[in-house]
């Protein structure tokens, strides 16, 4: 089974958070800013670059509106796990 882009994005995000000494045990609802992960503008820029390096594109640069949660970042790379499994089954 190949790793989905969503899984790759989650791995890249968690690696970034570990390097940034932020909690990496996130879920889809975890806010990226303020009382969530507390990313500042520079950290957001760095995460954006990390995701682009890993996956060729990133939601911070590509989307009209900045993602606000971990789930919104992951959604940029593909549907949620349940939907992904359904799609895989369909294939």
């Amino acid at each position, binding site marked *: 089974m190949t790793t989905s882009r969503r899984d790759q994005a989650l791995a890249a995000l968690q690696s970034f958070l570990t*390097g*940034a*000494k*932020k909690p990496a045990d996130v879920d889809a609802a975890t806010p990226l800013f303020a009382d969530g992960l507390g990313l*500042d*503008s*520079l*950290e*957001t*820029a*760095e995460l*954006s*670059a990390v995701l682009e390096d890993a996956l060729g594109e990133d939601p*911070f*640069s590509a989307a009209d509106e*900045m993602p606000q949660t971990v789930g919104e970042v992951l959604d940029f790379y593909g549907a949620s796990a349940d939907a992904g499994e359904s799609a895989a089954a369909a294939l």
Partner: protein
Amino acid sequence: METYDPAAHYDRVTEAWGLLLGEELHYGLFTTGEEPLARATAALTEAMIDAARLGPGLSVLDVGCGSGAPACRLAQEHGVEVLGITTSAVGVGAATERARGLGLEGARFEQRDGTANELPDASFDRVWVMESSHLMPDREALVAECARVLRPGGRMVLCDLVRRREIPFLELRSRRREFAVLRAAFGAARMDPLSSYASLASAHGLQVDLERDITTETRPTFDRWLANAEAHRAEVTGILGEQSVAEFEESCRILEAFWDDGTLGYGILAAGKPA
């Protein structure tokens, strides 16, 4: 990337920064651009003193007092009673020693947070915030606290690095290495427009009567800091390490470029609390 601890950062570099930035540990206000750094840093302090309208017997709160040089100067030369506050225990110790060495009784120092200082309402005639606000992320809490502790008729004066234009996300991303170098050298600063300080002051009941951009006048500071790094290379490398000194020098060049392209600069603001 490290989680930023302002006190620890300040403690680590206090001694070395004295060699790099000069005794007063802040930017200089240059008139001709040819004057030595010490005269220019004194001139910036003088501009703040003028804006504060100091007089003997007034009580002054120095928020983010560093090693206490400006506070001691205020007490010594203007006969004011100064309480300097900083989050750094080492800073408090250094400033207290400085005041003791000068035989000053009018300057004392305590470890407190400028954004939640726990001092009584209306307990100071002047609040002095010299180049410390960029290290206090909760800018509104800082200004609110300054306004709160001022007596009616009192004045707040503030000078600091400012952001002179919006930095779009994609530009920030493309220049992230430059900003990361600045953070490594100077700590996790955030620069706001001078006008945002003015807006906060107004929102907290102060009347702004001075809002001056001094970007051009502070620009020669970087040349002097680079010269200090060269002159004291062995000493500061011994304290900070080769990498930190290299980051400091690169930071000076990055800041020069930001100054020149209109991204960052320096401002001074004064506001009074209605009597």
